[in-house]
């Protein structure tokens, strides 16, 4: 059975600047490539479509939907650019013409794309490829297309697409044939093998199932990510991990000065600097006070060393030699990943899962900072450091100096507490390392500024001077 892929139309309708006029054809080419890659739809020539739509002034929603319906398209996608000088808002709107959408918007995304760098045609093309890939994968995640029962022969129901698996079967209500939208009801479930269902007595010709494209969406999203990763990072190598291993100690030691000046200040990362200031302060205090207190009051002195002083001393060494590396990584990696996301050159040392794992192992949150995941990084940074400090404290009990024997005697540790803390620390650390290795780098460009879903409190007066209070959850297109 020769299968005709459903048609998808795409046109850039809104473009309010010379730059967006340049981006429009690039985006059209990108979306055609993406549609071709997935092979679910057949694209209509977008440049021609845009030209004709603009020529006829058919740019409003009503007209677009009527046009798409008349032209037999299954999906009509429009894109609008709103250029705001140093950023651009790109809105994709996909109308589904077939069931179950019946002219409804199937997917809408609004993305703010920063445009502060220096770009040539290459960067613009890559940027549009990325946005097209991300949008289309998001569209495919939720999209459903009908496949109709096209023939009933010998007890077999033949469906218009060679799909396999269990599906819900729907039937259009005959009494609503003249109405819009058409009403349909679920009549049961069917098991299909390559588009054929056997022994399904209640199925009639014209019944339909809804097919999803989640696998294709995942594949497309992963391809888009992988492609960008290849373009903006160097291929990972173990020598980079070796450099990281060599430099981690010195970097941790100089972090209090180097991170703010050579990292945040140099790359204009002011949010990072503010976060660094407030998040690192308690641990720097522990480091400095722990080392200073020990060396000035207890080192080579015959005095009882309290658990707290010993704990801070050991933690001080850890934070100086390894723990501080996380914020050093953050101060450099965050800016570099932002550049990578914005196609501002190929970034060295980034994108290596082995390095991410190593960094996560030696310093709390470092692996995630390396990936550009700041929120996760700070979460692990605090969880690790707090657990480690309290664990160290439990394992370094008070060391009493016995004047009679002239020797130090260590007090007993509280084993259940100490080992519980150690277990918790190891569990968090294991999870962190695995997460850091498997996590993706935060290198996709653009920020979604409208998810389409919101929960808002409502309080309104009604026509009878009463009040309406409540919470409204809305999905709006």
């Amino acid at each position: 059975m020769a299968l005709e892929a459903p048609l998808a139309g795409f046109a850039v309708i809104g473009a309010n600047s010379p730059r967006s006029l340049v981006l429009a054809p690039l985006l059209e080419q990108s979306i055609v490539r993406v549609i071709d890659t997935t092979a679910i739809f057949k694209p209509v020539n977008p440049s021609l479509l845009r030209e004709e739509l603009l020529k006829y002034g058919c740019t409003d929603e009503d007209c677009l939907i009527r046009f798409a319906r008349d032209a037999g398209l299954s999906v009509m996608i429009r894109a609008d650019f709103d250029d705001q000088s140093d950023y651009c808002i790109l809105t994709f709107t996909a109308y589904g013409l077939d069931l179950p959408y019946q002219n409804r918007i199937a997917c809408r995304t609004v993305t703010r794309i920063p445009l502060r760098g220096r770009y040539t045609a290459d960067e613009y093309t890559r940027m549009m490829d990325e946005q097209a890939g991300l949008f289309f994968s998001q569209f495919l995640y939720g999209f459903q297309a009908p496949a109709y029962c096209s023939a009933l022969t010998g007890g077999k129901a033949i469906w218009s697409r060679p799909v396999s698996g269990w599906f819900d079967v729907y039937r259009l209500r005959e009494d609503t044939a003249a109405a819009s939208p058409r009403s349909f009801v679920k009549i049961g479930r069917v098991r299909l093998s390559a588009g054929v269902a056997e022994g399904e007595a209640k199925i009639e010709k014209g019944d339909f199932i809804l097919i999803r494209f989640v696998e294709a969406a995942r594949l497309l999203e992963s391809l888009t990510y992988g492609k960008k990763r290849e373009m903006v990072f160097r291929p990972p190598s173990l020598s980079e991990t070796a450099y990281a291993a060599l430099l981690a100690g010195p970097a941790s030691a100089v972090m209090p000065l180097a991170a703010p000046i050579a990292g945040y200040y140099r790359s204009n990362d002011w949010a990072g600097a503010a976060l660094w200031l407030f998040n690192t302060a308690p641990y720097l205090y522990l480091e400095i006070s722990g080392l200073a207190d020990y060396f000035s009051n207890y080192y080579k002195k015959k005095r009882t060393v309290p658990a707290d002083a010993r704990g801070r001393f050991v933690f001080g060494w850890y934070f100086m030699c390894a723990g501080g590396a996380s914020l050093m990584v953050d101060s450099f990696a965050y800016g570099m990943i932002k550049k990578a996301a914005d196609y501002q050159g190929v970034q060295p040392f980034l994108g290596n899962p082995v390095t991410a794992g190593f960094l996560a192992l030696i310093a709390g949150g470092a692996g995630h900072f390396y990936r550009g995941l700041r929120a996760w990084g700070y979460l692990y940074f605090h969880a690790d450091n707090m657990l480690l400090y309290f664990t160290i404290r439990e394992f370094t009990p008070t060391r009493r100096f016995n004047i009679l024997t002239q020797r130090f005697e260590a007090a007993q540790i509280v084993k259940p507490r100490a080992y519980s803390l150690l277990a918790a620390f190891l569990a968090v650390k294991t999870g962190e390392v695995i997460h850091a290795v498997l996590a993706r780098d935060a290198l996709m460009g653009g920020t979604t500024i409208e998810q389409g879903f919101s929960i808002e409190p409502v309080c309104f007066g009604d026509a009878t001077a009463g009040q309406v209070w409540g919470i409204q959850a809305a999905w709006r297109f």
Partner: protein
Amino acid sequence: MTPIRPQNVKWLIAAALAVATIEPDVVAAERDTLKPTVALFAAEYGSLQLNALAEASIVSVGEVFDTLGRFSPLDYRLCRKALKAQSDPSQEDPFSAAARSLGADLCAVISILSAGQVIVVSLELKPLNESYRRLAQTITARSTVPMNIPLKFARAVAAIHRDLPVEAEIIEKIGRSVWLNVGQWHGLMPGRYRLASGQTIHITHTNRYRSIAVIPFQAERGSRIVILSYPRAALIERECVKKIEANTERRYSLAASGLDDPEKKFLEAVVVINPGANILLPGYGAFLATSYLGFRQTKPSVAGIAVSLTLVATHFILPEAMGKFKVNFFPGVMDSDKTPALNNLQIFLWSTLPLTASAAFFDQLAYQYDINTVLPPFFLNRDAAALVLSALFPGAGMFYKGWRVPGWGFYCAEMFLAGFCVYRKDARREVGYAGIALAAVKIADLAAAFFSPPAYGFYNLEAEGRISLPALSLEVRPSMNGEPIYRVGAVMAF
């Protein structure tokens, strides 16, 4: 429908478009949209700039109407055509007449007045359908940044949508199901919705403009119901505010006045330039350091310099005065008259001199921002920036936002309480109370820094929403004894 094939694609597109774009009234019967409509007009001006601004405003307002799903904007070209067709000079309101001729439910007229640097704009909403009578109003706004005018209109129009429920009509009835003339465009999706009458309906299917619902009561074709679903106006308003802020920042930022990397310069000025300048010239040095930020005109705030000089003098003289001018001037150098508590206070006062120098600098900066009509660096993240500054320097967040007197207030309160804690270090109870008071003041300082709006008038003019211009009146009438009575009034709607 035959699908489009590559060889005949152009002809088929053209044919489909030709059908789709036939005049709306011709295909009215086929259209599945029965949306209320709004006709948008702009008063015409001799100025090209004002006309362009009016058209941009119409586009912007039209987009908001369309997005929020209560009124569909009519094509502006059709509106202009209808307006031109209103040739009767005796007609009082050609805009309403034109809108009525197009079958619109609402008429919106935009007018713009350029008053020096400020552009005053108004949007008059005239309901043509009795159901929307409560929408009759005039929205007035002003701005000095032309790009903000369409956004201000858009924000105001979004705001009036906040409490507009979905008004639907039953257009078909088959069995227990009814077809409503509202759909996804109006914000409805399959699910249960409350009606104004208190009942609940279940919407089972929607398309863009219609839906199928099961209703729990008997209703005839043509009856109307009010569904308590409200548009997400807040999201649009927030987005407009963001754009207004970005435009304002672009217009009034230090970068716009020609300074490269203002954030770096600001930090360098705080950390290096100002401390150096204050060592050389206490008080006045804070003003000199502001020139590092490249202000076009610099003028010192004499009051600020006087306050900072007084405070610097206090740092040095207070311990002396408390020791009746007999104690050694330098901290840490003890003598028979200097008590340990006084020595502690002296150390505290000398070591906090950089904080006073910084407060003086932030105060002078606030003055420079105001007289140069320039916004501080980091202004798009002003609340976080003010919070960080206040956390580091007492009162700095308030200075940053232009509130100079509260800034000095917080500064003095925190320094006094901290100084008291140091001076009375051994009196645990007093230190406890003072510590609690210090923590409370610090929290208040941080909260005020974060939540207070900026004090810069030129920014607030851009940030404000619709305005209610006061109407002034003057009346002279005779009294009972024949003497004139003068009455001056100001009426402001709110």
